[in-house]
């Protein structure tokens, strides 16, 4: 046996043949969850640059409400890619990428469940995104005039959805099956818990969207009338791009913020089970996604008129359950934070600020979704809805950047410059507010969504200038964050194994985490296994 091994090795070495793949091939063929996660995050951030630029362009187009510089078809297509891109090119890959990279480490697992499925999912997603961009650039997509490329858009959309579903399946299976011994579901770290809830939600919502895409494709290919042809398709897919489905996309960001509370407070999380329930409540948004039913508060213009009471009660229940419960879930997370900080000296860090401000933005977006559903306010079809989406999705991105700076040391082995990050957290928050809040106001003034020419009383050019600046500020934030990350992860100070004095298992291995993550399987006795160990060390 030894002879064969040695001879084989010597023979290859003597022939000058190496079996080590090149760096590029190693990344392309990887099924290592840390590499896959990083590829998803970086791809999402790069896509976000483009989406923020498109957002700024559309904002700029709306400053002069009487004239346009782009033709009508291009504007429709830009609106489409802005909506689709923010959700599916940027936010979801960043959130899923974080989960892919971090969840196995948090669970004490050596790898992701079905790693090759997740790798295939990543490439399918990327392939779909590239084809969608090509189709829209070639006059395809919603409102496009080139039928072949409209078909390509729809087919690519399906490929992208399949890819994301595969990744979500891998994450959910990982949390359900690869936890360290002793880690029951109540001891699962908060971020992993949120990743599980989000992944399960995606596994239920994305196939419904895929079914719709199949109808759209067959309809457009053979008989353009039933589903509205190239102009009607986004109406059928709109439920995946708006609230409450977007709450699901933002869920890992909420989980990250929840994870940061006890680490920042430097104590065990009080009422942790309630926090878990709060995060899970946000997952109720899945019901809104899969049913696609009316989520508005009825009694439009009728005060307390009790005519047709059954329908009104049905609408009211939908509204309260689909929009109200996720909001209550996030409220629970936010309200438990002061409880954790009570009597402690919190150690405020840049990741915490990113997470806190990001989730605060998501919360404002959720409040907006609640208001948007009140029929009497007449906000449906106005830019108020765009403002809500921007708050939720951009807010999730801000928290996502915090998560990258928090777990980056474990993935790259180096720390980022805190002093450079803190202003970026503030700039990012300002960007979210500027790109969203003016649309809340303009929505009340009836500025229509998805249109660049309109007429309403009020200083509409001010609101649209502010929104344009907001998107540009987001572009600047992402660019600056990328520069800080590039510099820090390449030449920053070595991170150490536990740079944040954290509580969960990922910090029990070396930084950067080695292949297979852990040399041996850990046994867990609480939700804060690392804190247990530190407490034992302090007491002995």
């Amino acid at each position: 046996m030894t002879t064969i091994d040695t001879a084989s090795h010597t023979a290859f070495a003597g022939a000058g043949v190496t079996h080590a793949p090149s760096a590029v091939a190693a990344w392309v063929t990887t099924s290592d969850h840390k590499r896959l996660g990083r590829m998803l995050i970086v791809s999402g951030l790069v896509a976000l640059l483009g989406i923020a630029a498109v957002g700024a362009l559309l904002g700029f187009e709306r400053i002069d409400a009487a004239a346009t510089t782009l033709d009508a078809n291009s504007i429709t297509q830009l609106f489409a890619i802005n909506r689709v891109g923010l959700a599916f090119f940027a936010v979801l890959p960043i959130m899923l990428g974080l989960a892919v990279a971090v969840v196995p480490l948090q669970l004490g697992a050596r790898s992701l469940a079905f790693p090759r499925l997740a790798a295939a999912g990543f490439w399918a997603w990327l392939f779909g995104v590239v084809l969608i961009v090509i189709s829209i650039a070639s006059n395809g997509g919603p409102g496009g005039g080139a039928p072949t490329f409209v078909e390509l858009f729809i087919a690519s959309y399906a490929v992208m959805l399949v890819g994301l579903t595969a990744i979500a399946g891998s994450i959910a299976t990982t949390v359900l099956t690869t936890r360290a011994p002793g880690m029951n579901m109540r001891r699962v770290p908060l971020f992993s818990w949120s990743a599980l809830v989000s992944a399960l939600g995606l596994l239920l919502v994305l196939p419904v969207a895929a079914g719709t895409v199949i109808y759209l494709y067959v309809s457009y290919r053979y008989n353009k009338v039933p589903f509205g042809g190239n102009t009607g398709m986004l109406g059928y897919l709109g439920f995946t791009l708006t609230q409450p489905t977007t709450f699901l996309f933002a869920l890992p960001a909420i989980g990250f913020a929840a994870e940061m509370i006890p680490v920042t407070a430097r104590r065990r999380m009080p009422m942790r089970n309630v926090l878990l329930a709060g995060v899970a409540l946000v997952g109720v948004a899945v019901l809104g996604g899969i049913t696609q039913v009316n989520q508005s508060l009825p009694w439009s213009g009728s005060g307390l008129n009790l005519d047709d009471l059954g329908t009104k009660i049905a609408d009211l229940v939908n509204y309260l359950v689909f929009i109200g419960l996720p909001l209550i879930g996030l409220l629970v997370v936010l309200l438990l934070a002061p409880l954790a900080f009570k009597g402690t000296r919190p150690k405020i860090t840049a990741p915490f600020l990113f997470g806190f401000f990001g989730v605060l933005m998501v919360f404002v977006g959720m409040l907006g979704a609640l208001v948007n559903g009140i029929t009497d306010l007449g906000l449906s079809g106005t830019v108020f809805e765009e403002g809500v989406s921007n708050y939720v999705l951009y807010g999730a991105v801000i928290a996502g950047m915090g998560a990258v700076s928090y777990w980056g040391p474990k993935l790259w082995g180096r720390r980022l410059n805190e002093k450079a990050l803190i202003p970026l957290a503030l700039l990012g928050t300002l960007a979210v507010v500027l790109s969203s809040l003016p649309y809340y106001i303009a929505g009340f003034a009836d500025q229509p969504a998805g249109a660049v020419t309109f007429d309403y009383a009020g200083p509409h050019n001010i609101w649209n200038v502010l929104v344009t600046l907001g998107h540009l500020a987001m572009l600047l934030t992402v660019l600056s964050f990328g520069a800080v990350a590039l510099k820090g992860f390449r030449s920053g100070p070595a991170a150490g194994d536990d740079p944040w004095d954290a509580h969960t298992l990922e910090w029990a291995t070396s930084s950067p985490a080695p292949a297979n993550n852990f040399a041996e399987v850990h046994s867990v006795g609480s939700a804060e296994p690392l804190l247990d160990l530190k407490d034992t060390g302090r007491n002995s």
Partner: protein
Amino acid sequence: MLALPPSPAPAPRRQLFVGTSLAAASGAMLVGGMLAMWLRFRNEAIAATGHWVPEKITIPGVASNMMLLSFVGICVFGQWAVYAARRDDKQHVGVALGLTALLGLAFVNAQVAVYVQMALPINDTTGSAYGVMFYAVTGTMMALIIVGMVFSLVTAFRYLGGRTNDREIVTAHAIYWYFIAVAFSMLWFVVYVTK
């Protein structure tokens, strides 16, 4: 580096079982979502024109009922494979998996027969969505069946190739076919019975 106490090897993970169950849930949402949209269009068409199925189109009852009945056999054979695998009976596992795939093939054959007998135009010039939706939803179902047949073949190759300890894949295989049976039962009722 901090070191937590080592523990004994973790219990069997049943990843394939859990993964297949999640895939089945996703597949159920795919088919369920498509059928929900079918019902919505159906209701709207009936409200607008008084009918949903185009005139002169007859849905072949025999072939569609045989498709449903084939799932009785598929479920029995899928569970037979699980039963035999628990008893390390390679021969019976092979026969059961083969019969499962064969019935899947019979289903595809029956579906094609339905298409031929119906002669339903997909590019209906009246603007009716029936043709488009019929081919989309039944085509999706057929694709899921073909995936199931591939699953049967992979399971057979792995198990008969010597991995007889890998009983989980046989169980996961049965789970997948149960899901297909439920999904087709819903489709059968909505598309072929309710019309």
